[in-house]
């Protein structure tokens, strides 16, 4: 565990340098511990792949005190075998119609479109981080065979629900936004709804599996093309 200064009222804790479930589990564990133990001093936290950004109230606590509290509370984290949250199944309509980059990605990977779909939907992903936009969940790790770099020119408008790949990460765009990820399908499940409780179907630490569905089923589930 390594603690560094991030800003005037922010420290960042690094639990490792890699994307792996064990490191991610430590990040999750830490969030839970700090939520109960330091609630009065903390303003917010940002858990990510291997790090946790901790933002504190400078009028209640200085960086030295915060650092020593973090060491005390998190120094003895046990190597739990990657505690995971719930399993969430997200339906996905994979096709060249709903995924404009699917054909190019398959060609690049020297695989058929069906093979790409099978590989993408076979793996159980882990939610490593949520950010970029409200409800945008970074899922990993994508099988290296279908990993693909970001587009050279990002799209101005990625549709809501787009299932996308960038390097070894995959995600579902929660709302229409610009974006440079490779689009391979559409998911009809809303990923972020401010009026719903909970607002998101997943949280950091959950496991996600994509289930291929037909065009008809996609429409039935409320998807829009």
């Amino acid at each position: 565990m390594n603690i560094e200064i991030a800003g005037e009222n922010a420290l960042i804790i690094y639990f490792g340098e890699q994307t792996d479930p064990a490191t991610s589990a430590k990040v999750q564990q830490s969030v839970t511990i700090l939520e109960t133990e330091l609630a009065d001093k903390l303003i917010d936290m940002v858990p990510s792949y291997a790090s946790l950004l901790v933002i504190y109230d400078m009028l209640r606590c200085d960086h030295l005190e915060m650092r020593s509290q973090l060491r005390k509370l998190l120094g003895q984290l046990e190597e739990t075998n990657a505690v995971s949250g719930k399993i969430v199944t997200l339906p996905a309509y994979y096709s060249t119609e709903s995924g404009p980059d699917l054909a190019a990605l398959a060609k690049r990977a020297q695989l058929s479109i069906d093979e790409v779909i099978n590989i993408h939907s076979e793996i159980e992903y882990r939610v490593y981080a949520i950010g970029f936009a409200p409800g945008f969940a970074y899922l990993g790790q994508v099988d290296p065979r279908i990993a693909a770099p970001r587009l050279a020119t990002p799209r101005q408008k990625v549709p809501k629900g787009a299932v996308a790949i960038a390097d070894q990460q995959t995600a579902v765009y929660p709302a229409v936004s610009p974006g440079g990820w490779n689009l391979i399908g559409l998911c009809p499940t809303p990923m972020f709804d401010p009026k719903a409780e909970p607002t998101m179907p997943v949280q950091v630490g959950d496991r996600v599996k994509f289930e291929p569905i037909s065009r008809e089923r996609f429409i039935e589930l409320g998807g829009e093309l």
Partner: protein
Amino acid sequence: MSGFKVLQPGLLTLIQDAGRFGHHRIGLTNGGPLDMQAFKWANRLLGNPLNSTLLEVSIGGLVLASEVDTFLVVTGAEMPLKINGVEQDRWHAHRIRQGDRIELGFSKQGARAYLAVTDGFDIQHDFSSSATVSREGIGGLNGGKLQPGDYLPCSSNTKGQSFRLAEQHRPQYQDNINLRVITGYQQQAFSDVDKRMFFSSEYEVTDRADRMGYRLSGPEIKASMEGILSEGICHGAIQIPADGQPIVLLNDRQTIGGYPKIGSMISIDTARMAQQLPGSKVSFEEISIDEAHNLHCLAHVKFERTEPEDLGK
């Protein structure tokens, strides 16, 4: 329902409270005022709780029609305030009556002004805050900037407190400012030469300067790594993307990113920077985290101890 009618919204006027906190975990950013000091003074000059909802007016051009009896104050950038066509003092609470016309002209100095009314505007909270973040479509009246015809509800209050801040306590929004930066993580990504260049050169505020971040242009800084494993980004973080031009991340930043950071600007100075318009020159000075804490605590105490002049009932 009483309140104010928006006749002209101006270039960019947003409903803001102190910001949205505790929701980074679902990807929600802070929003809130770019200039916290001017924001707090606006509420304080009316005796409001400091987190009360007000308007952040960027550049100017706002015209409101009052349908309420209350008090109103404008702080921040030098946007001429007119009530029924007569220019009035800013940093000074004024009694407003039904039928009054309130105009904020275009700024002569500074970029953000704050317009508050007694008890604040009565805006529904999204995730425990009224702060508008246009990028997320969250907060405010409908997640975006004010539009002509919008209605800003607030209660009628003729018994409110009213204060005036003496001239010598009002901030000056000068150009060519020095901005203080704490270095921290990812120092190893920048050579000593690049760091020295960053802290000894002049940068210019570009026209890509908004509530998400201020893009600056100047001598190119090279990071030894192009990207890092995505991690949380704090307010004030200075990212160096591949083109070597720094971006100072502000209230509406995305919460997670993967560009290396050369340091982080203290919040007192992000506020001063956010009062700068494109073309303004800035430079950076490295300070320690302890100095940063001292400056913050001193500014806090100074704010608490500065007594505005009570204008009476």
